[in-house]
């Protein structure tokens, strides 16, 4: 998997993570187990899980996932999320 920086967002460190195709379902199950069930928006065909200091948002296909950090988001928050997504820098 890889990630790409997304410009002009809520936080300068905003990335889209491109999951491996066969890992998408399991990744969202892990996200839901850790941060709560995804909220779905049927009109935009998007879903998201809301963690205390960031949000993980994607289309209903679940891939790629955009991580929108709040300003208070810590390196530890991101480290944990990366472990959960299976992303290594």
């Amino acid at each position: 998997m890889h990630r790409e920086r997304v410009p002009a967002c809520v936080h300068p460190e905003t990335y889209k993570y491109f999951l491996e195709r066969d890992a998408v379902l399991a990744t969202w199950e892990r996200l839901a187990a850790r941060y709560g069930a995804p909220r779905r928006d049927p009109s935009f065909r998007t879903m998201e899980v809301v963690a205390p200091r960031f949000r993980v948002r994607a289309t209903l296909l679940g891939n790629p996932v955009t991580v929108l950090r709040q300003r208070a988001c810590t390196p530890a928050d991101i480290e944990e999320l990366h472990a959960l997504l299976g992303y290594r820098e």
Partner: protein
Amino acid sequence: MATGDDLEGRLAMQYEPATYRRRIAGHDVIIHCHHYNARLQRTLEGARGIDGKGLIASTAESVFADHLARAGRPEDDEATRLALAELLYARLGFGRIDLGRLAEGVVTASSSHFVEGWLAGLGQSERNVCTFTEGYLQAAVFAVLGAAVTVRETECMARGAACCSFVVERGERGSSPRIAPAPNRKQAGVPVPAERGGPFVRSANVDEQAIIDAVVGIPMVGDAAGLIPAFSVYLANMPADFYNQVCIGFVEAMRGLGREKAAMRLLVSDAEHCGMNTFRGIMHSPEWDGLIAPMVRDRADALIAIIAISNALGWGDWHITAHTPTSLALESRYGYEAVGFREYRGEASTPQCAMLTGVAAGVMELVYGEGTVEDRYGTFASHEESCVSCGAPACIFTVERVE
């Protein structure tokens, strides 16, 4: 004390499909993002020889004194008025203010659209950035206690503080005693146009109404932090009266220095950057990927989709009348700038719609340009040919690539 449901009901949004206007407690609100709000603030506060900070604070005070009065009820007790002031601020997307220590003359804010906007859009700040909030709090204190006060931010998260802190100073501001915020005085504006205009350029691929319905269907209200992270940017519902009064006030103050044209150029430039940045953020967002990207086959489709979104945000009731990769023409029959100018100043002698003029160039630079935002900036020139504020039936914008 009124219940939370009652207060939320008073602040429910009403949408008017004929003009795309959104109304909350008697005020038309326009949705802009942190890029535009931060840049506009920087322009006003950075202009030499005028008091841009004072203009922002006094306008916010005047507009929100009116807004809170309209949302209030004669039977509201003090606790209700206090809760209403906190709730309106949060629901509009400006952040969280805590009025619990108002009696001590202290207000704190744990989140702020303006701090987020400044840091994300413009980088670190040397000074406190919550000027708008100072004005809002002056209005809130007036709504709650009936006293005209001066509010000053003493610490700001934009400079690393844990929360923004404000002190409430009673008594006089400057030399003249103030009894109440300046009234938000307007005259009859422009009637809602009976005809839609056109003909407009459409695309068989892009379902503009589906886009508008989806955007209007999102509850654009602040989250637990009073912020609205949507389309990967922070949005806020700003009363049109605020934008119109600060922009008119800015241009008039600059006119006094012989710099009226420079003022309009600055306002257009902010909007041009906004057009590029806001929609660049939006075009990379999951919302775009989910609903809009499947409709977009070419760049013209992207442009039509962008204009549809901007209509749903309340910017202008504007539509494309002609379009090539190097040129664009748009018609707006009920833009908030033109309508607002008529309400505040009557008929204008020159076109007044700086925001739409700049955005028209910015979206062309985004869709057809290459490179960074700065590479693209200025590669299209936009001109407002005629304006509703001058008595014309529509504002007409033409954009051409700069050769």
